[in-house]
């Protein structure tokens, strides 16, 4: 017989060597907006795939909350259908889905209905009792943003936000406010009930494997960081290009525009990650402190000079004729909403002083590409006769986020032959060719991190507010001078001419990603 250990164990020795440091505690995830698109397309498939790969704890449960008339059975059937349609792994394993569905229930209520929260509280208590979830809660706001404040308020007023033991966390979807003022108001509303440590603001870009890879690329390789500064880098271009238009999101897009939709969040996240100093460790606050420092160091922006906006007109993309923005559904025929933004930013610190960062994002561009391109300075002198430095393309290091995630480095090489002729070659590395493992969806990673209580890949209050501050400066200047030349680029081109001029002024050109 085994001799039992007498001192209490503090560590699960069986856990060692397994990929995950631990399994999340059993918890209930309450999804507000449970009958919506995000839940069907992203959340439920993410939960199913997490269960499939053994990442969810026993007893993990989900309560869907929405104001759609559905019985619990109907709700479960809808979710099963959603998983069948949108899961990245196919076919769906019915037994595994069944074990997820066993912990799934549905509460119908308007989000401002006090009685509804009473029923929700009762349902949560039942879960704790029957499934051992111990008061641990994730409140996931997958609703339209106007409901965020009222849900927070009711969670507080009903006592659900603090009830009993266990941890409570809130996940908030983008957009987090629509300007600095509204973001601050939302933060205030949330903080009336939850502390900042309980808040997880999603920017799904941060959940992407390749964005995390940028950090690994920079901080796990000894050779890049020493040249990652103004001495060696000429400038940096960050691109988030989309070939699609606004699809059916005209109503939302009219109020958002490219500045709020992409620039304020994804582009500035990529900027922070490309420009930040090495964090001392990978703790949530250490990493986010460094990212916020970058945003704080952005040189005051001269909008008229350094920011270009654009809107697409009709054109051809990928061999297909497409309408202009003003002809899209639910868009005003005289709309002045921008579908393209390019900006020249400078970062005032020792690493980057005088090194421009060119950021751009747009819809209906020729291709879909997200990348960070570091263009290095030319060699100071070329000893080879009859070869001019200007004939050579400078070294460029590109980190591609999507598609074909990977890295490439452009270097000069001699063309074989008796004459010294040089040309530029591309050393290409793509992650797909080195790792067979299928990348999880960004939502799987983020939901799991939230369950484990790791907010590293979520946006912090000060980060969001800084980013809005910058967007507000641009928006304010634009508001004073509405765009007169829209549409100013044809669908299927790389944006307005003014964006090219922005770089030409500095003697530079946009890359073709």
């Amino acid at each position, binding site marked *: 017989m*085994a001799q039992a250990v007498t001192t*209490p164990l503090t560590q699960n020795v069986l856990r060692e060597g397994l990929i995950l440091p631990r399994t999340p505690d059993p918890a209930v995830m309450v999804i507000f907006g449970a009958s919506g698109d995000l839940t069907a397309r992203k959340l439920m498939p993410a939960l199913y795939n997490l269960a499939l790969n053994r990442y969810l704890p026993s007893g993990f449960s989900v309560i869907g909350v929405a104001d759609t008339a559905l019985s619990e059975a109907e709700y479960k059937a809808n979710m099963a259908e959603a998983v069948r349609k949108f899961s990245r792994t196919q076919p769906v394993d019915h037994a595994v889905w069944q074990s997820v569905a066993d912990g799934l229930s549905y509460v119908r209520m308007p989000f401002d209905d006090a009685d509804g929260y009473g029923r929700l509280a009762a349902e949560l208590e039942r879960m704790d009792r029957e499934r051992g979830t111990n008061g641990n809660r994730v409140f996931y706001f997958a609703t339209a943003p106007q409901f965020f404040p009222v849900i927070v308020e009711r969670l507080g007023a009903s006592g659900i936000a603090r009830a009993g033991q266990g941890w409570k966390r809130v996940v908030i979807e983008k957009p987090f406010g629509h300007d600095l003022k509204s973001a601050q108001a939302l933060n205030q509303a949330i903080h009336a009930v939850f502390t900042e440590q309980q808040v997880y603001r999603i920017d799904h870009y941060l959940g992407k494997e390749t964005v995390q890879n940028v950090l690994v690329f920079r901080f796990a390789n000894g050779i890049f960081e020493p040249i990652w500064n103004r001495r060696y880098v000429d400038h940096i271009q960050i691109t988030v290009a989309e070939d699609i238009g606004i699809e059916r999101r005209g109503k939302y897009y009219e109020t958002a525009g490219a500045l709020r939709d992409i620039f304020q969040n994804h582009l500035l996240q990529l900027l922070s990650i490309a420009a930040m100093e090495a964090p001392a460790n990978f703790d949530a606050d250490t990493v986010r402190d460094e990212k916020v420092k970058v945003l704080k160091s952005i040189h005051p922006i001269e909008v008229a000079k350094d920011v270009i906006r654009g809107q697409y007109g009709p054109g051809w993309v990928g061999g297909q004729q497409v309408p202009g923005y003003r002809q899209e559904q639910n868009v005003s025929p005289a709309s002045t909403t921008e579908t393209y933004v390019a900006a020249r930013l400078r970062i005032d610190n020792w690493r980057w002083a005088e090194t421009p960062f060119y950021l751009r994002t747009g819809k209906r561009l020729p291709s879909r590409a997200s990348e960070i391109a570091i263009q290095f300075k030319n060699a100071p002198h070329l000893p080879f006769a009859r070869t001019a430095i200007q004939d050579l393309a400078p070294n460029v290091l590109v980190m591609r986020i999507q598609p074909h995630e990977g890295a490439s480095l452009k270097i000069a090489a001699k063309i*074989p032959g008796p004459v010294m002729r040089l040309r530029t070659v591309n050393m290409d590395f793509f992650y797909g060719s080195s790792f*067979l493992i299928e990348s999880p969806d960004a939502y799987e990673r983020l939901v799991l991190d939230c369950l484990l209580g790791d907010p590293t890949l979520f946006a912090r209050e000060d980060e969001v507010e800084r980013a809005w501050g910058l967007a507000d400066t641009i928006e304010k200047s634009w508001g004073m001078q509405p765009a007169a030349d829209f549409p100013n680029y044809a669908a299927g081109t790389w944006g307005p001419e003014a964006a090219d001029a922005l770089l030409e002024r500095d003697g530079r050109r946009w890359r073709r990603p």
Partner: protein
Amino acid sequence: MSGEHGELSTRTFVDVHAIQDELEQVRWGLHENGEFSEAAEHAAAEARASVLNLIAVVGSERQLTEVSHVLDALSVTNPSRTLILLAQHDRSAAKLEAEVSAQTRTESGHRVTTERVLLHAHGEVAAHLASLVDPLLIPDLPVVLWWPGRPDFDNPLFDDLCQLADRLVVDTDEGFETPDLQRLLEVARREHAGASIGDFNWARLIPWRHLAAQFFDMPGMLVHLAQIQGVAVYHGRDGSTAQARLLGGWIRGRMTTLGMEVPVELRLDDAHEHGVCRFLIYSRGQDGQARFSISHQPGGRLSAEVRVDEQDFVDRTVRLARRSAEELLAIELTLPGHDLLFEEALAASLR
């Protein structure tokens, strides 16, 4: 997986320098006379990604075909220099042939090329193939030795190749008996140039280990871990019991780190064909009596159940994917260094 697949060159050599030359040629897609064509120049201007040297040892033409299929499937995701040794030392007539080829695949506009050398030897030279392998490896990249089937441990080739390799990949499900497991442990624990060991069977156990570990992550369950009285591993009627022994060895080895000696019982389940089919952990102490069980279910699933003092806790079902040789090898190729837990489990299974 879309892509083209082309064999650039196939010829027979016996001279290592000639093989090296040919490798350069196929690596860069040069013409036979060494001149660049425009296409070759373009190809040469692309960097070549190589992540490792891979040596596979096979004993028969049939096995060669199987192994080639696996390597084909891996070539896009693990661009490598691959050496396949068809070593038939029991065939009398001395023979040594080499064949060099390159597989090029284009996927999403990216070219990936894998060079492959097939060395086919009969007779005495078959035991000394390692002398031919060494000069053909790409420097600065890890060397993985994959030995499908049960290796011939007493053949000098095995020892020579293990000396060259950073990692030896086997499948202990291929009829490994106690002395074989013992030899594996010796390779891993060699003081100089000890290769780390990868075992497909160990990778197959990951879901079992994961579920077992998760039992004790549940609130209030950790106390039962310190009170484990014994475990039972049920296995199917066919083939090797190595998998069941490793799973038992794993928990035994882990509990030893707590100073506990846990008895492991292997039990035959006639109704099941092959491999581990059930894993039970019993615990008893001042915090009550608990039984943790994981069972293999039809349709490729595992179900996990906990019973504490006659009360059933939530059970759940997860997928137990049946992994192909490509997938298992792909996992092994990305693992760095020694897997100390595997070595611990292997050692404990031999106690």
